[in-house]
């Protein structure tokens, strides 16, 4: 009896491992091992030609601390996250509430909100680039016609470049997050809101007391996604500003790209990547603990 069982177990082990093997090979080869070698290489110099990488200890990290561009880019990324996440999440909730309502033309509404999600960020940037063109672009034409403003170089001015990039990102992301809220809204029992309405609760009260708390798991999910995206989405920067002017709109991943693939300093690139990895893990942990207490599970 027992021997029979253990044979079954052993067979299960082998089957399980064999089924997992191909996926694990790829997972380790392109995610876990590179993550570890990134950390190792961050302590080494960049190999050049026949010269091998040399162990530098903390030199790369000292350079990091003294690197004004790094701090600027880090600040930019923080501002980028603060600028995109709350706005796109709030917009997503509003959009979802509207689309979920029995509203005239909600098919069109849903299509309009969601379409930017399907477009490549590169294409989106191309379209917006024209909007931002000084003098000639649509935004300048509108502001000069409506308010008589003179032409503004939105992408060329260090004061506005990053914000212009943020606008494009919000436009692209809000509709994507809307979908998740839509799913959450549809899972809330109608009886709950009907009961509240009969009791005389206003839409506002219903939203803050019932809908919003019940959507907390979605908010957790969406904001984790949004945080990851704020470090991952840099495609549009290539087209819109190329990180400029004077790194005013450069983000961490873009700086990593520049360091490693334009200046070919892969050692320092690895050091920068370590910072990105650290930030992502910290934020995931922090967000989990912050939200955990407030999330209402059904």
């Amino acid at each position, binding site marked *: 009896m027992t021997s029979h069982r253990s044979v079954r177990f052993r067979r299960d082990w082998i089957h399980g491992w064999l089924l997992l093997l*191909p996926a694990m090979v790829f997972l380790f080869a*392109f*995610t876990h091992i590179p993550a570890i070698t990134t950390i190792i290489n961050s302590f080494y110099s960049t190999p050049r030609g026949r010269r091998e990488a040399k162990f530098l200890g903390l030199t790369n990290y000292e350079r990091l601390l003294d690197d004004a561009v790094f701090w600027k880019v880090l600040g930019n990324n923080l501002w980028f996250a603060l600028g995109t996440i709350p706005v796109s999440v709030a917009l997503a909730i*509003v959009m979802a509430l509207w689309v979920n309502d029995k509203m005239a033309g909600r098919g069109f*509404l849903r299509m309009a909100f969601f379409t*930017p999600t399907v477009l490549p960020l590169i*294409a989106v940037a191309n379209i917006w680039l024209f909007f931002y063109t000084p003098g000639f672009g649509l935004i300048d034409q509108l502001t000069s016609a409506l308010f008589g403003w003179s032409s503004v170089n939105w992408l060329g001015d260090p004061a506005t470049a990053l914000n212009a990039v943020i606008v494009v990102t919000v436009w692209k992301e809000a509709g994507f997050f809307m979908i998740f809220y*839509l799913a959450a809204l549809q899972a809330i029992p109608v009886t709950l809101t009907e009961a509240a309405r009969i009791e005389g609760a206003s839409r506002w009260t219903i939203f803050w007391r019932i809908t919003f708390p019940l959507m907390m798991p979605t908010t957790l999910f969406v904001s984790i996604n949004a945080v990851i995206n704020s470090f991952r989405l840099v495609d549009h920067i290539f087209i819109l500003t190329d990180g400029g002017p004077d790194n005013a709109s450069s983000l961490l991943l873009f700086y990593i*790209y520049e360091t490693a693939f334009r200046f070919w300093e892969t050692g320092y690139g690895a050091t920068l990547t370590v910072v990105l990895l650290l930030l992502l893990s910290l934020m995931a942990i922090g967000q989990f603990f912050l939200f955990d207490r407030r999330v209402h599970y059904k």
Partner: protein
Amino acid sequence: MTGRPFSLDQTLNTLAAWLLALLWILPLVYAVWTAIHPGAYEARFVLTAPLTADNFIAAWNAAPFARYFLNTFLLVTLILAGQFLLCTLAAYAFARFRFPGRSILFTLVLLQLLVMPDILIVENYKTMRLLDLVDTIPAIALPYIASGFGIFLLRQTFLTIPRELDEAARIEGASILGILWRVYIPLAKPTYLAYGLVSVSHHWNNFLWPLIVTNSEETRPVTVGLSIFSAIDSGIEWSVINAATLMTTAPLLIAFLLFQRQFVQSFMRAGIK
């Protein structure tokens, strides 16, 4: 339930919703406008502006877009096929087998949702150089084939399938892979569709990694091709650039407009599991 009486609240909401929707769709409408009209009407909006296909023709002839499309098609197909195969096997293992190391390995899979290959560009490039794969389509695809997201999604679906079904198949003499093929995969079809749509649109749109790892016409996907095309400062007209932009997104956009409901439901399904 039927026909709520007219309310100011409702009307204002509808109005605001429509305004935002129009604002949201405006960039796209604008791109279409410039693409189908001659360059002179880039910023002049007259209904009588003559229609033209010249911009599309000019864009098509100015860069090897046919080749770029082929590359993207091959890339997306390769990734999807690889993901379906690897993620299915792995998800099956996690959902139905007990073996030592299962929970640690599953944690490692989930970790990929946070630490994506997108971020590890420096090291992955070194790996590709080591494998002598730089500037090939497999090089773009390989890092994405073992998708943590795909494994997770399929595992969740497989877990909902009653065990009695695979017991029944086992009694009939089906092998382990036979059970997977005849019981699990057919029942998970909606998940495959959802994951497929999400994966295809994600990799159709991907840019940074393909930009790094390709450097010739024969391997570049459309996104990289488009960025090179529009980055040339040789005074290519806006209308032509917009035509190229629309052209490269057209297959996805048309598919989306035709299968809107499925798309939205797929993204929803992929997100809430």
